[in-house]
């Protein structure tokens, strides 16, 4: 009987807890310099973000995760963008909603990360409609406990800025959003920018040309300038609603 009970307990499926609210607590004393509004990236998808507002003067930020998004405790990775700083990817723990004890809150408790991040602007034309990027993120430098390496993805469409990039440690991969034009290229940002500016720029041409060179294309391959290839690329991109034209 005891053995059967043990087997049943072992065999019980893991209980998944979904939270529709996220709370962040900065444990270090330097939290006063943190902005009143920050945001969190869920599941490594920069299109799925949660805005967090500071709670009074406390070192605490809260935000509601809009449906259908949620944080699954112990599974959904969360990373924070703190305007000038960012965290690595972490897993939240479960907490109770003080106003509704039946509801779970995803909680992150962490020290304030070093303010060494800056924005990366993608500048210049021509710019195809959509360029995907992947941020390859290392664990937090100073306190790696609780963080792990992860890959976060995003899309450059209207917005041309990638927020809070750790130029020292992150690697960026860009790729055109079209199967036959794919060919991701990587930028080790520390090697790409050798000055200490808070904001850096990558010309779009650099990305496109590097992608084209990688896929062996000719229009932007670096050695040939072929209007025929440009015409062909424009046609191929057009099938996917992309354009090489600058915006009006």
């Amino acid at each position, binding site marked *: 009987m005891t053995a059967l009970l043990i087997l049943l307990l072992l065999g019980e499926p893991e209980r998944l807890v979904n939270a529709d609210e996220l709370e962040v607590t900065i444990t270090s004393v330097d939290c006063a310099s943190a902005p009143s509004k920050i945001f969190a990236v869920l599941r490594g998808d920069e299109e799925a973000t949660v805005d967090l507002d500071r709670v009074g003067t406390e070192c605490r930020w809260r935000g509601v995760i809009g449906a259908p998004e949620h944080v699954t405790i112990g599974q959904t990775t969360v990373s924070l963008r703190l305007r000038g700083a960012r965290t690595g990817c972490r897993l939240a723990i479960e907490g109770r909603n003080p106003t509704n004890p039946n509801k779970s809150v995803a909680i992150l408790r962490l020290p304030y990360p070093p303010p060494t991040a800056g924005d990366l602007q993608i500048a210049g034309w021509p710019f195809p409609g959509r360029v995907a990027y992947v941020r390859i993120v290392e664990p937090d430098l100073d306190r790696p406990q609780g963080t792990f390496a992860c890959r976060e993805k995003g899309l450059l469409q209207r917005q041309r800025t990638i927020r809070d990039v750790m130029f020292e440690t992150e690697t960026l991969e860009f790729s055109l959003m079209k199967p036959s*034009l794919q060919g991701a290229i990587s930028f080790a940002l520390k090697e790409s920018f050798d000055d200490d500016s808070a904001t850096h720029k990558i010309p779009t041409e650099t990305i496109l040309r590097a992608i084209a060179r990688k896929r062996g294309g000719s229009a932007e391959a670096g050695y040939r*300038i072929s*209007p025929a290839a440009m015409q062909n690329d424009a046609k191929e991109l057009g099938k996917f609603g992309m354009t090489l034209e600058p915006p009006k």
Partner: protein
Amino acid sequence: MKWLPCVAALLLAGAAAAQAPIFQPDNFLDPRQRSGPVFMSFLLLGAGRGVTDAFRPLHQDVGLLQIANTFYWSRFEAGYNHSETRGEVAGGTVRVQRCGCNTEVYFPTPPPPGAVPAAPLPGSRDTASFAFYHASASGPALRYRFLLTSQRIGTEISVQDGPAVRRSGREQTFAIDGDVNFRGLVGTLYLARTARSGTTDNRTQNELVYTNRFPVLPLPKGVLLRTALTFGAITDRGASGINVVNPLVEAFWHDYRSRVSVHLVYSPQSLHDGNGWTTHHQVAAFIERPLYAKFFHER
């Protein structure tokens, strides 16, 4: 500015891809970029000063118009270009005078063997090409191309106290070029034989030149800067060894809305013959725009 009227007159195009490199539009299209067969027709319109034709100076400003048609399928490319070039001296027919003596002596006297030959007067020219692309899994595609160019050359010989005599001749060029990608050297090796017959200045020259392309440099406002260096040897120049050195700088701008590409080119061409080196400062401006493009079924 003498060449401006020439442009206005829509001078029909000089083209032969390799014979007038300064007006050489690039129709390279990597087969890996295509989803299926493609046909493209381009119109090229431009003007040049100090330009040469197959490494022979024209000694006049020219305007040109070219229609280039290319069909791409599988790993192949077939092209037909028609070009019309016009200069300050009317093209089409060469007018010479023959002396009344027993030997065939013409005025103006053509350059002697061993000297840089005179280029044919600007006129109509047709070029047919066939190319094969070799594309590995990674790295740039390489193109190997055959070209046949033909230009009619009429000659009107006036003789003292006699009726003028007309001759119908032509100049033909057969060329092979192949792309090279070897340890950072990216360029094209070009081998050609140009022969002129049926004229009062029949010449033949063989050309073996290599054009090295350097990485394109992006400039502000979407302008791309292309640089290349051509060098090689041409026969019947009175100087053996390398007798052509020809750097090229080209600013290229493509407007994605109108699909017009604008080229500004400067290309000093140094030629060595029995009299030493001479440099011809070629400057050209031309635009090209697709006239028609057909993208066939998807693979």
